[in-house]
């Protein structure tokens, strides 16, 4: 089969897989929350409640769609769309496994391997603010606007610390391409052992960027009614909630790729290339992603929510200086190793 | 995205890029001269800056001289700083004059 057909199949598979994993993340969230709160989760729809996401989806489709009276119609319809687009776009550069041999030519399990993959992820994360801002503004509602502005300011504050924490990583790997960063972590050289502080900062910023607790002030119901998605109903609300879970999946994938060795595992990466090695590596990658998704949910039901000024204080006055100190220490160690 | 010699350098002559930048610049210029809202005027200035950036980048790419792209890098940095300060000034002026129509900003007129 020609190369472009294979790529299209691969991209559709990744697209479908992100949607499927996001769908069952909603189910997993409710089951894990139930487990942590010593109760049963959903167990009526299908065996063990496994058909619950389908039931939720059907419910959302059948709700009434309304657009508030003075709302800007086009922007109201486009807001959730922007959010979903930026959530799905990041999956284009994540390497899901080593090369497989098709017709004698290696086919990489990564939609595109651009030279500046890390910068691309950073750019798409910066664009995620637009979906929230447009949705909050187009609702023509003071609470929505306030929630949107809080969410946007949280997003842009933590995006700075995220970028700074990645710089030390790039200094160590001398490359912005995600495939190079993953390939340098073969064996036990996972980046989390070399950059523990960078990993911690990036983890906290990933929580803040995906609006997950303890940083979920923009959308908690006790503070601002519904925040920026108060006025949205039916599938537009479904898009917002769904895109948040896709964001969580993508953040887990980026964390696994940058700091935990991606699809490498000591023992598996030294096998000869073949179907078995690829399948095991993809399994390892998804195992790491699911661990991080579980971690996201675990923290949600453990820590209380941050207040707005505590959140801003953490982002600007604690994380940014820590990230800069991380860069200094990394630079000093690299110079020392180079013999200066 | 890696390629040894992108085909665009043989398919499109440099004059096309210069004309495109000039057209974008003219669109921004018309916006600055015509619109009356200070925010829109500011955005049209950004269009003009981007048109100049496009011309610098295309010339630098066609001749293999990295100086053009470095200049664009610094232009973007300066534009970001300028937008921050400019928007702060606009917010202050709006607080005092309660309007964003540039015909009202004539307090310094003798």
């Amino acid at each position, binding site marked *: 089969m020609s190369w472009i057909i294979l790529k299209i199949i691969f991209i559709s598979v990744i697209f479908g897989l992100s949607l499927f994993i996001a769908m069952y993340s909603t189910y997993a969230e409710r089951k894990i929350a139930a487990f942590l709160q010593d109760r049963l989760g959903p167990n009526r729809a299908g065996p063990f409640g496994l058909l619950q996401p389908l039931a939720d989806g059907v419910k959302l489709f059948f709700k009434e769609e309304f657009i508030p009276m003075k709302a*800007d119609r086009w*922007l109201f319809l486009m807001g959730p769309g922007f959010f979903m687009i930026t959530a799905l776009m990041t999956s284009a550069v994540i390497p899901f496994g080593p090369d497989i041999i098709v017709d004698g030519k290696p086919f990489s399990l990564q939609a595109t391997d651009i*030279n*500046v993959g890390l*910068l691309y992820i950073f*750019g798409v994360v*910066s*664009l995620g603010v*637009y979906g929230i*801002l447009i949705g909050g*503004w187009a609702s023509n509602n003071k609470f929505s606007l306030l929630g949107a502005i809080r969410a946007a300011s949280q997003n*842009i504050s933590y995006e700075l610390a995220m970028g700074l924490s990645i710089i030390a990583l790039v200094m160590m790997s001398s490359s912005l391409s995600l495939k190079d960063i993953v390939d340098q972590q073969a064996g036990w050289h996972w980046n989390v052992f070399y950059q523990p502080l960078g990993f911690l900062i990036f983890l906290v910023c990933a929580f803040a960027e995906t609006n997950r607790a303890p940083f979920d002030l923009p959308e908690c119901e006790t503070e601002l009614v519904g925040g920026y998605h108060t006025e949205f109903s039916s599938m537009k609300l479904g898009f917002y909630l769904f895109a948040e879970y896709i964001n969580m999946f993508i953040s887990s994938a980026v964390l696994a790729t940058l700091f935990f060795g991606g699809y490498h595992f000591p023992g598996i990466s030294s096998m000869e290339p073949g179907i078995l090695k690829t399948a095991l590596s993809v399994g390892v990658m998804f195992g790491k992603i699911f661990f991080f998704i579980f971690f996201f949910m675990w923290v949600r039901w453990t820590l209380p929510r941050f207040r707005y000024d505590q959140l801003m204080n953490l982002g600007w006055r604690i994380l940014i200086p820590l990230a800069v100190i991380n860069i200094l220490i990394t630079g000093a160690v690299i110079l020392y190793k180079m013999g200066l | *995205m890696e390629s040894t*010699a992108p*085909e*665009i*350098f043989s*398919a499109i002559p440099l*004059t096309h890029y210069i*004309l495109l930048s*000039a057209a*974008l610049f*003219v*669109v*921004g*210029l*018309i*916006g600055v*001269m015509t619109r009356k*809202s200070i*925010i829109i005027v*500011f*955005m049209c200035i*950004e*269009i003009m800056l*981007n048109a100049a950036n*496009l011309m610098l*980048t295309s010339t630098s*790419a*066609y*001749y*293999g001289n*990295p100086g053009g*792209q*470095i200049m664009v*890098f610094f232009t973007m*940095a*300066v*534009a*970001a*700083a*300028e*937008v921050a*300060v400019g*928007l*702060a000034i*606009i*917010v*202050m002026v709006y607080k005092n004059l309660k309007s*964003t129509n540039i015909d009202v900003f004539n307090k310094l007129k003798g």
Partner: protein
Amino acid sequence: MIDKIFYALSIATILCACMVVISKHPIRSILFLVATFFLISAHYVLLNAQFLALVNIVVYAGAIMVLFLFVVMFLNLNKEVEPYKGFLPWLAALVGGGSFFLIVISALQKSNLLQNENANHSIGLVENLGNVLYKEYLLPMEISSVLFLIAMAGVVLLSRKEKIVNE
């Protein structure tokens, strides 16, 4: 094939820029401007200037336009209420802009652009650009950091509330 891509991108860019100027809603102008920046980044990718394409998205579309959106939302600017003062300002602007464009076209006609057959077409990649930036242009880099510090201090100073002086 690639020249069709170039022409399509150019027409889309100029169309989006025109919509920025013409549109009556400030928010729609901002969104069209974001689209314009995306299309200009696409041009940079065509020219193999990958780093600049992404930095354009991160800086312009991701930060500067968010600032604009914040200001428009705070000032609560809805549909423009400026009165339509006739088509004379537009005619004057069109004549002025059009004559500028004519000057550029005629200058290009007379000029004779040099060709460079063995130009290095990979200077847009991150490694090469980074090398040049940190070796030959180190001083402007460091001075631009001072520039950012001054801009930040200026913005904080401008937006401070004035102290009430006790007479």
